[in-house]
């Protein structure tokens, strides 16, 4: 650089000072302010009214306590593995490879609803079955199904309100019945759903329970035709009503113990039923059953044969996020789906960063 150029530069620098410099700093400051402001706005720290995924996880922790390394809901469970054998009947509804004739490996997890990993098994506790189908092209299909015909609520906000209403009172240690009463008074859909649930009494065990996706999905076939579908797993084991006796201290894992005994006797199987919705059937309301007589396509058989030890179980590290879907299945407009995905992710993030407490699962 020549001396002249240097002098010129010095002159320009001098000219910039005072008002010019201030103006430039003001512009830079304004840009920064807009960016920080929009982040704060998007992050909700300025609005702060909408429910966030952390609110759900926090509330589960408030109710059940923090159990290091466990899921915030469906904390008690056991991993299983097996396979799904498709008969090809589902292929006309969905182009997903899982519905072409053939077999795909499945990892699953039986669980009980609730955030307590050490609680005693009880017949009336909702049973869950999470499944991960591993498709040959690297795709996955995950689902988390429950042993109830419909869900108790139809929006994430109602789910949260119901959680709050079931929070144990600090003095009695039990939920305040007046709060649940007030919740039910403002949620007739929950009252209707509970009536339907009580007309489907629980089966005697995990192996002969029917599990339902509760939420609807859209199945998209090769021709691009989209069909609303709800899923059901119907057991091959015969239904037997649950015994009404309460578990004692000695058999607090009686449901899981019975499942282990059953699996030692041989594989347990379910038909995967695709319940085909008709125009007008609600896809956004998990509290409402679809009318009787809807077409039921038996897409194949799920076989679960191996129970995994709690320590080495792969299922422990799987987030059974119902929106991990292969091409050919897309989410419906049910608002619970995105919420489940968001809250499960929050639960997964929390437990992934924790050291796991000694195992509470059955078989210990």
């Amino acid at each position, binding site marked *: 650089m020549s001396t002249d150029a240097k002098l010129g530069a010095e002159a320009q620098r001098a000219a910039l000072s005072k008002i010019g410099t201030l103006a430039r700093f003001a512009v830079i400051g304004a840009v920064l302010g807009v960016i920080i402001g929009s982040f704060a706005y998007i992050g909700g720290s300025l609005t702060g009214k909408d429910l966030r*995924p952390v609110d759900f996880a926090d509330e589960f922790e408030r109710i059940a306590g923090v159990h290091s390394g466990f899921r915030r809901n469906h904390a008690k469970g056991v991993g299983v593995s097996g396979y799904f054998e498709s008969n090809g009947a589902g292929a006309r509804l969905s182009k997903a490879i899982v519905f072409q004739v053939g077999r795909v490996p499945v990892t699953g997890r039986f669980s009980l609803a609730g955030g307590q990993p050490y609680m005693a098994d009880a017949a009336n506790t909702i049973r869950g079955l999470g499944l991960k189908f591993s498709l040959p092209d690297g795709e996955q299909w995950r689902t988390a199904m429950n042993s109830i015909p419909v869900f108790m609520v139809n929006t994430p906000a109602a789910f949260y309100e119901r959680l709050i209403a079931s929070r144990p009172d600090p003095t009695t240690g039990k939920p305040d019945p007046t709060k649940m009463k007030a919740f039910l008074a403002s949620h007739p859909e929950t009252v209707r759903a509970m009536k339907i649930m009580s007309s489907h009494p629980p089966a005697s065990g995990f192996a002969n329970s029917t599990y339902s996706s509760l939420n609807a999905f859209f199945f998209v076939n090769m021709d691009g035709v989209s069909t609303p579908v709800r899923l059901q797993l119907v057991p091959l084991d015969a239904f037997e009503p649950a015994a009404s006796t309460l578990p004692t201290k000695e058999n607090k894992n009686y449901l899981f113990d019975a499942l282990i005994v059953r699996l030692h006797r041989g594989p347990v199987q379910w038909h995967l039923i695709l319940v085909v919705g008709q125009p007008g059937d609600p896809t956004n309301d998990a509290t409402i059953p679809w009318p009787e007589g809807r077409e039921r396509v038996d897409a194949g058989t799920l076989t679960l044969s191996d129970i995994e030890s709690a320590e080495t179980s792969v299922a422990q590290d799987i*987030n059974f996020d119902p929106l991990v879907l292969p091409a050919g299945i897309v989410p419906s407009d049910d608002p619970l789906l995105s919420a489940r995905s968001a809250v499960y992710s929050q639960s997964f993030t929390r437990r992934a960063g924790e050291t796991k407490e000694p195992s509470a699962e059955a078989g210990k």
Partner: protein
Amino acid sequence: MVTERRQFTALSRLLHWLMAPMVLSMLCIGVAMVVSVANYHRLVSIHRPLGISILFLVVIRYVNRRLNAPPPFPPTMSAQERRAATASEMMLYALLFALPVVGWGMLSAAGYPIVLYGSLHLPRSFRTA
């Protein structure tokens, strides 16, 4: 005598203006998706392929940066300002590369399929267990 380049090359400018809105959108989506219940899935479905596109573009951008040097600093910049500008450019490249790789790694560690679009997937960057 070689005349000094006065402007960034057309490719550099294209990459810059392509990536700037992508990165800003990515930041906003990232902030929004962790607090949103209703739009979580929709946002995550954009977040993943967008992040991978940024990773893909930053590799091209880095190669382009090595091949086409930017124009020299304006003579009015002090030595200190030049150091700050160079350091922030290097940091920006490092972050543009590191953040998508971290995201890819997180999905891989959790065993999620890394869906780009439909059945188009990325392989897991590493395997746990």
